[in-house]
């Protein structure tokens, strides 16, 4: 299941259960340079805060 990481300071614009499109913005990159987008069309299955890197790990189940 694809997973992306977004910087936690800005939070994330999706929550568990949300349908996302490929290219949809999910949050800000860890270096604050640019956005992080969904790599696939799918459903958000988990959004977990990672205190190690102060980021959110978003797992997306691909759906065709």
């Amino acid at each position, binding site marked *: 299941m694809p997973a992306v990481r977004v*910087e*936690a*300071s*800005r*939070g*994330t614009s999706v929550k568990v259960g949300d349908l996302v499109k490929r290219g949809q913005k999910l949050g800000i990159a*860890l*270096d*604050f340079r640019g956005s992080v987008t969904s790599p696939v069309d799918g459903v958000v299955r988990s*959004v977990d*805060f990672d*205190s*190690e*890197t*102060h980021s*959110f790990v978003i797992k997306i189940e691909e759906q065709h």
Partner: protein
Amino acid sequence: MRRVRRIFIKTAVVAVAICLVATSLIVQAALPSAPPVRNIILMIGDGMGVAAIRATQLDTKGPDARLSMETLPYSGLVTTHSLNSSITDSAAAGTALATGYKTNNRMISMLPDGTILRTVLEYAESKGKSTGLVVTSRITDATPAAFASHVMNREWEGKAPYGKDIALQMLYAGVEVLLGGGRMEFLPTALGGVRIDERNLISEAFALHYTYVETRDDMLAVHQGNLLGLFTKSRMDTVQSGLRDGVHGTEPSLVQMTSKAIELLDQDPEGFFLMVEGSLIDLEAHDNDAEGVIAETADFDAAVGVAIAFASRHPSTLLIVTADHETGGMAINGLGYGGEGSRYGFVFTSTGHTGTMVAVFASGPPVVAGHFTGVMDNTDIGRIMFAAICRFPSIDHPRRLQFLDFS
């Protein structure tokens, strides 16, 4: 004519000399024999917004009671924006508090052009004071890192692509007391750590005359000297886990760590600088867990109570309680946790940080503590602490402190 000129010059020289002596005497008379502040205790609730404070008050004491931090005589609001964002992170916010300067998010006590910023902890050390850092996150996390290291990226905790990482800098910064989690940042990969330079900083700590401990009981048994306590591999456990209540498990509570740090640092006749952070309010707020936010804030407030008790016996102590930023956009709207039939309800509007102002509370010598009123910037807090350590008896205005000699 020449004789008249000589007399004039001699008279002018004598007059100038008299003025200089008189000015010096006046200034000397205005300066007290000792600076008004001997100790500084800075307490930071990471992510602790005003709503979190009020929610904790409502949930634990009721609407008319006050938390310990709210009993301090001076209070105000603080803006927290960083150099490149209206919404800061703990790195830039910690830098502002530690140095009096703003920087970009993710940077630790450095400007974007690479300039290293002197921190108030380093300044305190240079003035002969003892220093300490106490947290419930990793000791190398952004907030404590901002006081004892300088890196371009907050992630360089136990390894850096170039230069020295946070753990290495912190260990050799001369900080007398370091308490928190993050053992893995100090150990080589061969011992389960993350250090790819394969250095064992815990072994090196012994050579630096640290007493090293990993449990609450061992920490409580130390009564003098330098102390390095790394109680978990990464961050410490949350209050809700039940493992950090000072009784169960092996981790000390924030109250116990704060008490121990003060006990050790107060032995320095020159006084001390101590930063204590309630680190995991932020974690719970990112998870939008109101119950967790309240538990961590209450735990932090209990540690504030320890500091207040010490400061009440030592009036030359400047005590500051604030937050680096707000997390979660917490609101009290009668719904959410505690709502639906209860009097209160707490909800969140974000999973990230917000740009709202945070509170500051302070006590201590009025000539210094009295500046913590009204609306101020987080850099003002850093600059007031610098000025409190140098021998100026009064602070005209925080913004003018940039012209003071901090050497």
